[in-house]
């Protein structure tokens, strides 16, 4: 199983622990990868506000690079996943538009013909690897650990860009993974809502109200941690949780936010430090302690 790996700007910038843990976990899963180091940022929907065509050119360029390698693209970011899938859908629906976009790529010797796909690691786990094989890579059963899922908007909407009709299991993939590590799913209505990150720098008050609602509710429901496949959600839910909960009277910032690969790594018995769990703003020592106290299955 080999992928053209697109980690995204955050994993390569403000959230290096995501990149490191993903690579460590992919190794254990037997996923081979080659990083698309020449690919651009997806634009995250921001660039698309200003100029959708420009955004589409950049993302189709990334897909064309993968196509040239004969590989599907794998992301570790819900936002990148969604933004690339939306661009892909637009060109697949409109041959003239694809030709126009390809016109901008010709200079670099690139051209896209729709022969690749974009898949988040989360989907690769449930679709390509499969729960049974996945479970074989785990050495610990996280029973008694309460985990709240938090998807990130762009990996759940717009649904018609995300292949839910052909692959309905994608819609519950995060719960599936939480169950596969043996954890309890803490279900709450905010799991597919917005984390508030896109307006953090525009309307901080509203953004932090969202952070406080989601983390406060999950805490009240007994979650030990929240798991997310989106590093942008992570930035907001982790980095701004103390301020958000203080400002909105939602108690102490006590909910660690864990990247998806970090959760897998814990179940695989990897060292918490190696997984970068010491780099989060909300202290992860309680959840790490809880997992460390679970004996490795023999």
């Amino acid at each position, binding site marked *: 199983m080999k992928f053209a790996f697109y980690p995204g700007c955050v994993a390569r*910038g403000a959230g290096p622990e995501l990149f490191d843990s993903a690579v460590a976990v992919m190794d254990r899963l037997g996923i081979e990868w080659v990083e698309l180091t020449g690919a651009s940022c997806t634009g995250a929907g921001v660039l698309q506000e200003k100029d959708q065509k420009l955004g589409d050119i950049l993302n189709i360029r990334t897909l064309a690079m993968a196509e040239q390698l004969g590989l599907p693209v794998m992301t570790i970011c819900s936002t990148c996943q969604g933004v690339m899938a939306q661009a892909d859908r637009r060109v697949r629906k409109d041959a003239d538009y694809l030709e126009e976009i390809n016109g901008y790529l010709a200079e670099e010797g690139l051209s896209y013909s729709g022969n690749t796909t974009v898949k988040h690691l989360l989907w690769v786990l449930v679709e390509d690897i499969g729960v049974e094989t996945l479970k074989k890579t785990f050495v610990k059963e996280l029973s008694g650990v309460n985990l709240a899922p938090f998807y990130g*908007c762009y990996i759940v909407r717009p649904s018609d860009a995300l292949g839910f009709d052909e692959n309905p299991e994608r819609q519950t993939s995060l719960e599936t993974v939480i169950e596969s590590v043996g954890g309890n799913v803490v279900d709450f209505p905010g799991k597919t*809502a917005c984390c508030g990150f896109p307006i953090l720098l525009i309307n901080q008050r*509203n953004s932090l109200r*969202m952070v406080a609602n989601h983390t406060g509710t999950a805490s009240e429901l007994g979650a030990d941690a929240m798991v997310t496949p989106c590093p942008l959600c992570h930035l907001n839910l982790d980095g701004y949780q103390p301020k958000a909960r203080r400002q909105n009277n939602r108690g102490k910032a006590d909910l660690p936010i864990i990247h998806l690969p970090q959760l897998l790594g814990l179940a695989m018995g990897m060292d918490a430090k190696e997984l970068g769990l010491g780099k989060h703003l909300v202290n992860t020592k309680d959840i790490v302690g809880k997992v460390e106290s679970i004996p490795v299955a023999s």
Partner: protein
Amino acid sequence: MNSKLKVSRFDPETMGSGQRRWDEFEMDLHPSATVLDALIQIREEVDGTLALRCACRASICGSCGMRVNGEAKLVCKTRIADVTEEGTTIVIEPMGNHGIIKDLVVSLDPFFDKVRQVDPYLQPDEEPEQGEFVVNNDSMENLLTAMNCIMCGACVSDCTVLEVDEAFIGPAALAKAWRFVEDPRDDQRDERLKELNEVEGGIWDCTRCFKCVEVCPKDVAPMDRIMEMRDMAIEAGNRNTSGYRHTESFSKSVKKHGRLDEARLAVESAGYTNIPRLIDLAEIGVKSVLKGKMPPIVPHKADENEKITRIFERVESERNT
């Protein structure tokens, strides 16, 4: 098919606001029955006190918006078989972000107040020379997307910003605003854009969460309309918002490096003269440094990033001509 329905009940005469009761009903329904058919059957055969609103039963009037399994829908358009499998329970609640009058009936007053806020009528400077304004077909076809809105409130129900901020004008009213901004007969375009750019709860407050696009039964795609207005507002010279600075800084970073430079984005969005915001950012930044995860001071670059810069330059020069 055998179906179970769990219905949210609220009686203003005996319950305080915010309270609710859940009633469960089990019934045998034809597989092609709609959720509305089921609710009417309950009202006619089981419990005549169940309050709900409907009229056309054909997704035209927009009066039957409710939440089905947590998502806003027109219940006359939603088939039981599409929202449940044999044996599972369908959860029916009134729409979110609206005050509840009784059971499944919500108050639409705030909804229409928001629509009124955007002056939803044409404001031409002059009378037509004779008879009526003549406009071409293309410009009317363009307006159709937003004119299809049936004012059902589904988008408002599930909007993630309205959930935390009542002042947000919201998806339906902003889509309505777009409809007048885009109408060639209107002469208040620039004033409208200026207002939507500056007013509390205006175009920059949307989080781009796609909820309204997902739930709208008429493909109005309010979020897309809002994004178009952001671009139009900027083109019309409104550059005084952190939203504008955010978009500009973001695209400058991608243009130059091929990647996003988070640290610069934060500072530039705040604005170099916004001292309290900068101090606030510095606080988070210092904590990140202590934890060993500060964004690199020298921004990371895509390999051969000059190729990305060239694409930007080409698209920008085409846009300017």
